[in-house]
């Protein structure tokens, strides 16, 4: 353990030891002891052993006091080792110092012997340099005069040559003009310019005049060359450069040329106008079959070619005029597209539209070759996007217009009541409008998509999107339009409704039915047709179908509502006008039944034209045997009413209980029967409610009884009478008996007789 401790003390305080050594050495070499930093007079500090103020006694005391024996012994060993080390270090230092001193002495001795012989060599060198300088001065002065003379002669010669050139200039220029070497002429003239400027007013006046004249002709010739289309573009470009060198105002020329270009553009547009005219004419039904391309393309293409050439030339001539040209070219494209837009407003077929687009695209490609910086392709792509979009939108609008036109046309025709199948025709026409119209539309768009025109290829994705969106919007708009036409929507909320005239009340009831059925058709079509076309893309056909389904339902309900409302007003009048408490004995069936039946027949004729026949559910009921039925129900009623008295309500309740609750209002289907019976049921229910609001005397009750009895008979002749209708008819009589002071029914023979009389009369009338 001691061993290990010792090695550690050797290792660890090595730094400490080295530092102390350095300090010692420095104090040894440092002559001025006083300047050495005074170590702190900290007697306790064991490190202070090196300081001058080290007190050994004190140190010993402290050490002895502080350390134990083992510590003291260790300290002793350490110290002995340190002292030994210090001794060897000191010895080595002394040896080194001595060596250095000896070598320094050697060097000094060697230097002394070398320097002695140098002085004499230096003096000799100075003498020689002096003599070289004096000789070179002599040569210089002797040659000076001659050199000056030569320089003078040379200058004179140059001057003479220039004068000669100037005098020759007019002749040379004219020679150049003759040989059309305008470039040389301009070069000469520009070379002579500074001299003319300096001396033109005095000695070389004639010369200057002559050469300027020549240059004027040069300029003239150059200008002519620039403007002449027959010259090669290279030549024209050179001419432009030369003119520029002559400080000729090129800008005005440029402007002039640009004007010319614009003018030609204008001509081009005039031509295109003509093309569009042709295009429009070809849209006339008489010429529909004609292929489009053959008519305008030749003339048009030539002119566009010309324009492209001109632009190319211009560009070469004035290389820094791109921006103007770009503007010009874009202008051309814009004008083109505007033209198409105009046409789109007027409704054109897709073939024509395609043709127009193709023309533009070829133009654009031509221009692009000439002027690629204008990035006309991109530019026209943008414009094309807008146009195609507009085209898609307008096509849909027209389809919508077609459909509502088809409907509105019918709206007028049924006014002639003789027209039996007006509604049917209406349905057919509008159905065709919807189906055929949409199909044609799809074919048209397909054509657009299939075309390999560059413009359209790039737009293909967009077009598909637009068409899809357009279709969805179209179906929605169609739905809106249907609702609008049906008068269900408040026209004030939609501006476009104003153009339809005031729908609202005036709308024909039959049309609503047509619309209902049409919605149904549209529902099935928008599902299938659209799917067939866009099967690879997500198309919200389900949603659209849903919209139409609900619209169809809504419209059907609306139709039923409108019809029942008319009957309701009829009934209301019937029940509010007379004083039922003072009613007279019934003598015949009241007129309102006739009116009701008349309304019903109207419904029937409308429904028959439009709606499909539903399943016949109750065949056994169709053979009308009114008398037996009526007597049975009469018996039931009699039963109920003879025991008039306290238990009457209980009676009816019990009767109802046993009768099994009849579902009066079932879901309406869009079949003839369903609609008819629903209307009848609603009307009968209204009748019951009206009866409940009144109070009757006996005669009043009997009148109701008679009316209902007749109604029961005649309804059997008109429609399928289901249980619910029978039930409702009974209910009307029950309601009347409840609201009567003295409910004594008519005797069955009298009732039958009155009904028969009425039946006979109504049959007579119908004949």
């Amino acid at each position: 353990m001691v061993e290990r401790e010792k090695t550690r003390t050797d290792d660890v305080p090595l730094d400490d030891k080295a530092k102390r050594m350095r300090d010692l050495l420095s104090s040894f070499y440092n002559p001025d002891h006083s300047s050495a930093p005074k170590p702190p007079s900290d007697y306790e500090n064991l490190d202070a052993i090196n300081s001058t103020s080290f007190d050994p006694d004190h140190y010993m005391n402290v050490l002895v006091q502080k350390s134990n024996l083992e510590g003291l012994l260790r300290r002793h060993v350490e110290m002995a080792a340190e002292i030994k080390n210090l001794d060897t270090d000191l010895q080595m230092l002394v040896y080194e110092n001595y060596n250095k001193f000896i070598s320094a002495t050697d060097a000094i001795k060697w230097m002394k012997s070398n320097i002695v012989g140098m002085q004499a060599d230096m003096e000799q060198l100075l003498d020689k340099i002096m003599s070289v300088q004096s000789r070179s001065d002599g040569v210089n002065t002797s040659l000076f005069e001659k050199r000056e003379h030569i320089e003078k002669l040379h200058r004179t010669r140059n001057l003479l040559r220039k004068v000669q050139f100037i005098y020759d200039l007019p002749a040379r220029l004219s020679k150049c003009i003759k040989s059309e070497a305008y470039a040389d002429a301009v070069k000469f003239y520009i070379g002579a310019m500074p001299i003319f400027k300096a001396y033109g007013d005095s000695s070389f006046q004639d010369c200057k005049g002559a050469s300027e004249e020549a240059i004027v002709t040069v300029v003239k010739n150059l200008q002519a060359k620039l403007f002449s289309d027959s010259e090669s573009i290279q030549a024209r470009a050179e001419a432009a450069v030369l003119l520029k060198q002559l400080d000729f105002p090129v800008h005005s020329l440029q402007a002039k040329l640009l004007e010319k270009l614009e003018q030609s553009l204008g001509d081009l547009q005039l031509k295109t106008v003509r093309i569009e005219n042709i295009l429009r004419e070809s849209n006339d039904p008489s010429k529909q079959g004609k292929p489009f391309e053959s008519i305008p393309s030749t003339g048009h293409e030539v002119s566009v070619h010309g324009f492209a050439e001109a632009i190319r030339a211009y560009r070469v001539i004035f290389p820094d005029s791109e921006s103007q040209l770009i503007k010009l070219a874009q202008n051309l494209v814009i004008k083109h597209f505007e033209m198409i837009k105009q046409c789109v407003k007027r409704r054109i077929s897709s073939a024509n539209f395609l043709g127009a687009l193709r023309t533009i695209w070829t133009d654009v490609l031509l221009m692009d070759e000439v002027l690629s910086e204008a990035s006309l392709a991109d530019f026209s792509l943008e414009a094309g996007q807008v146009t195609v979009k507009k085209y898609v939108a307008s096509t849909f609008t027209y389809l919508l217009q077609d459909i509502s036109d088809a409907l509105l046309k019918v709206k007028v025709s049924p006014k002639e009541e003789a027209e039996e199948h007006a509604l049917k025709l209406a349905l057919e026409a509008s159905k065709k409008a919807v189906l055929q119209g949409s199909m044609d539309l799809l074919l048209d768009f397909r054509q657009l998509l299939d075309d390999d025109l560059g413009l359209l290829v790039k737009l293909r994705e967009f077009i598909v999107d637009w068409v899809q969106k357009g279709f969805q919007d179209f179906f929605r708009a169609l739905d809106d339009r249907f609702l609008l036409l049906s008068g269900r929507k408040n026209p004030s909320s939609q501006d476009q409704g104003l153009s339809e005239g005031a729908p609202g009340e005036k709308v024909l009831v039959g049309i609503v039915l047509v619309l209902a059925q049409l919605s149904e058709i549209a529902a099935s079509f928008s599902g299938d047709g659209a799917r067939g076309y866009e099967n690879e893309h997500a198309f919200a056909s389900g949603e659209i179908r849903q919209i139409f389904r609900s619209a169809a339902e809504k419209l059907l309900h609306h139709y039923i509502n409108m019809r029942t409302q008319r009957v309701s007003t009829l009934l209301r009048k019937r029940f509010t006008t007379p004083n039922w408490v003072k009613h007279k004995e019934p003598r015949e069936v009241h007129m309102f039944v006739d009116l009701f039946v008349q309304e019903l027949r109207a419904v029937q004729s409308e429904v028959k034209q439009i709606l499909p026949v539903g399943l016949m559910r109750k065949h056994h009921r169709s053979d009308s045997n009114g008398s037996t039925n009526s007597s049975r129900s009469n018996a039931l009623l009699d039963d109920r009413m003879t025991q008039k008295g306290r238990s009457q309500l209980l009676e009816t309740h019990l009767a109802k209980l046993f009768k099994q609750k009849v579902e009066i209002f079932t879901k309406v289907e869009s079949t003839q029967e369903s609609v008819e019976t629903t209307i009848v049921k609603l009307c009968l229910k209204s009748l019951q409610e009206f009866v409940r609001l009144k109070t009757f005397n006996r005669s009043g009750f009997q009148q109701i009884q008679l009316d209902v009895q007749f109604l029961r008979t005649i309804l059997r002749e008109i429609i399928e009478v289901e249980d619910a209708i029978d039930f409702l008819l009974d209910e009307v009589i029950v309601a009347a008996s409840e609201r009567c002071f003295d409910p004594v029914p008519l005797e069955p023979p009298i009732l039958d007789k009155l009904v028969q009389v009425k039946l006979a009369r109504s049959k007579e009338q119908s004949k």
Partner: protein
Amino acid sequence: MQGSSGIGYGLKYQGRCISDVRADTDHTSFITGTLSLREENEVHLIRLSSSGTELICEGLFSHPNEIWDLASCPFDQRIFSTVFSTGESYGAAIWQIPELYGQLNSPQLERVASLDAHVGKINCVLWCPSGRHDKLISIDDENIFLWTLDCSKKAAQVQSKQSSGLLHYLSGGAWDPHDINAVATTCESSVQFWDLRTMKKTNTIERAHIRNANYDMKKNHILVTAEDESGIHIWDLRKPKSPVRELPGHTHWTWAVTCNPEYDGLILSAGTDSTVNLWMAPTSAEDEATSESIAESATQQADPLLNSYSDYEDSVYGLAWSNREPWIFASLSYDGRVVVESVKPFLSRK
């Protein structure tokens, strides 16, 4: 949809009208009367038991004639009004339930006052909806009467009267709960609004066949109307041109509508198709800013019909929310059956 949730109570005869006894703050009770031309008619005071599972007959009083309209006084639970008919003539009266009720042997009702200024068919009597107020309105076919009622003196005096004008046969009315001076009356072709101070028409909504109208209890300017064939419309009275919202109503006529006194947009309607429909059709104030079409499309997404109670045997004419427990309503079908239902299950769904 579901049948057995309601609590039933049978009247002896047919009935058309039921009213919530608002002044009774300790119990949820309703008052109803029968409509029988030839029998002796009764007024039933019904209380919902504290457990909410039973309807108890709290009082049974004979009433001289068949009752066409009945309304409970909003500040005295013992006072109510009826409109009755002998079959030939009509009358209206204010009644007081005698003190000794509790025994069921048909004690006589005390007649506080007769509103006997009418000539034709009387349609309804309205109590002022906003608390203690001695004013009454009665509406007959052609006139509106404003009465001052003095219960202690047992007298009612006509304060003012106004004819509705030619060709306007009134059918009913509603008193604005937000404005004590505003009353709406329904007639064949329109809803008319009156200022009671001047008895002048202030506004009209042109709309045919309105059968019933009811003010929104929470929101000012909102009126709900029920129409024969075309369902329920919600109107903002500041824009009387077109309705704010449209609800499909009932398969046959929509007879009555009533707005919940507590929950905004909760509407109850009764129809002659033997159903009661519960609607949730909130009309937000922001509707004014947004265009109508947007509002319409947004509302179309949520079905406003919360529930259809279809367990009725006959047309439902009587309908009343309870003011004390606003999730409870009572309905009366023509066969004299009172059904009390709770709409709580449909409220929690929101």
